[in-house]
């Protein structure tokens, strides 16, 4: 297993385990998920040497089920769509090292696609951080329903939006590991207490399933991406699914609603990092405001600072009604809109990302608002907390394209069923990049 070489070429890991034992199944863990035996940085200099005093629940549940390889690279705190905000080296797309692997679960997608051995990557999504890199790296990426997987031990970005999920080449492996990690946790009051199915048994006929295709999700999408996605939808059609055009009119409002809510919550979550108790610290002289500002000024990278400022502003007295509270109400409308579609359709299908994986030079030219706009297709379902699966659906110019399937709350079974059907009828998922 050429892990060190993989890591050197792609920066997939922030922390790679020294001695790796042979196993039937390997795991990699996104570095915002706490591991007691490995440092956990959330991709930020602020936690460059942080050793959590406990394991995340998901880590507890996979220990003994396979060999853990290490902690994968990510945009710090989850703030990013391209992996370019990682404080420990920029992760690179294994299909083209000059391009982005997607973000913020960048390393997870790289390992899932480029490591030849059978492996499942634990990842996390707030606004699309599983779907995007999965799509850019040609792997399956499952974002479960909000609350289905315990968040105990997940370093928060935005608590009403964060979800732990999985990436792998083979959807069957994702189903297997889902069985390990889902289900109520007495340490997380937002975790789902109900019964969960056996995900390995979710496959079969997709004939008669109604698939809604929202026209708004095809606007502002590159032609090459559209083409491959339409091929995928045609495949579903040929397998007997009923394809219908639907309209998600509120799509254009999802981006603003998402960023306002996510950053308002994130700015409170990151307030605790101030040079006390854990994380980066400095010489403790001066009054506390000076000390906090100094540590936070040096521990947070530029994107983090930008987002903290935006999030602080959106909930400030005088602005809170117009931004924060409004965004929450728009969220309600967006959720209702999805629910309405699901009363008529079993699934929604669309492109995962509007573009192919971009070059790093192209990313550097983008203004923040243009970068944020890249999330336009994933923020809607993430706001609604519905489960989604990005499926490898083809290559364009040698670069992977993902098809995004979405289902109603707790209907991961439908995602597995359709995903397995596509897996059975395509071969894209089998490809492994040469490094």
């Amino acid at each position, binding site marked *: 297993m050429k892990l060190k070489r993989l890591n050197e070429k792609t920066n997939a890991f922030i922390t790679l385990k020294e001695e790796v034992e042979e196993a039937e199944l390997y795991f990699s863990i996104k570095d915002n998920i706490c591991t007691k035996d490995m440092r956990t940085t959330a991709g930020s200099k602020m936690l460059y040497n942080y050793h959590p*005093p406990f394991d995340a629940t998901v880590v507890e549940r996979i220990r003994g089920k396979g060999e853990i390889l290490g902690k994968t690279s990510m945009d710090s705190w989850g703030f990013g769509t391209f992996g370019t905000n990682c404080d420990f080296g920029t992760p690179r797309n294994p299909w083209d090292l000059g391009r982005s692997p997607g973000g913020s679960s960048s390393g997870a997608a790289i390992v899932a696609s480029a490591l030849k051995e059978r492996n499942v990557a634990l990842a996390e999504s707030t606004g699309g951080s599983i779907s995007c890199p999965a799509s850019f790296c040609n792997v399956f990426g499952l974002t479960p329903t*909000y*609350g289905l997987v315990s968040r105990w031990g997940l370093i928060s970005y935005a608590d*009403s939006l964060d979800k732990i999920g999985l990436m792998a080449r083979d959807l069957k492996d994702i189903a297997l590991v889902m069985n390990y990690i889902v289900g109520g946790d*007495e340490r997380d*009051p*937002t975790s789902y*207490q109900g019964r969960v199915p056996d995900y390995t048994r979710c496959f079969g006929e997709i004939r008669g399933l109604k698939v809604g295709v929202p026209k708004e999700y095809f606007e502002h999408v590159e032609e090459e991406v559209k083409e491959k996605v339409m091929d995928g939808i045609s495949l579903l059609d040929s397998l007997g699914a009923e394809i219908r055009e639907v309209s998600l009119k509120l799509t*254009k*409002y999802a981006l*603003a*609603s998402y960023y*306002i809510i996510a950053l308002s919550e994130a*700015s409170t979550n990151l*307030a605790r990092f*101030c040079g*006390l*108790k*854990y994380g980066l*610290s400095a010489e*403790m*002289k*001066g*009054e*506390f*405001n*000076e*000390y*906090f*500002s*100094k540590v*936070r*000024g*040096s521990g*947070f990278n*530029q994107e983090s*600072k*930008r987002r903290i*400022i*935006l999030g*602080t*502003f959106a909930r*400030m007295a005088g602005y809170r009604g117009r*931004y924060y*509270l*409004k965004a*929450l*109400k*728009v*969220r*309600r*409308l967006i*959720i209702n809109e999805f629910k309405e579609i699901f009363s008529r359709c079993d699934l929604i299908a669309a492109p995962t990302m509007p573009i192919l994986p971009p070059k790093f030079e192209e990313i550097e030219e983008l*203004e*923040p*608002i243009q970068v*944020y706009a890249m999330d336009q297709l994933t923020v809607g379902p993430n706001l609604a*907390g*519905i489960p989604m699966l990005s499926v490898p659906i083809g290559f364009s110019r040698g670069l992977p394209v993902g098809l995004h399937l979405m289902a109603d*709350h707790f209907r991961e079974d439908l995602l597995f069923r359709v995903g397995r059907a596509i897996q059975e009828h395509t071969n894209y998922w089998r490809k492994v990049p040469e490094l």
Partner: protein
Amino acid sequence: MDVEKVARIARLKLSEEEKELFSRQLKEVLKAFEVLDELNVEGVEPAMHPYEIRNRFRKDKARGWREIKMPNKEGEFYRGPRVV
């Protein structure tokens, strides 16, 4: 947005370049957020979670935690920066 003021509230020390850069960039972002002004949300309940999460409580039982390592220990206390 007064970036300097918000940065102080958030206890973020910014360089002069950062203040200028963010002023410009965040102005653009806020402009994009203005799209929400188009929507009438009268009578709409804010959505705190994707679905209702209600009344999850824990029994009142006392249980200790094993020792926690934190820096700046001084005797039995932890040292912090002065407040005046």
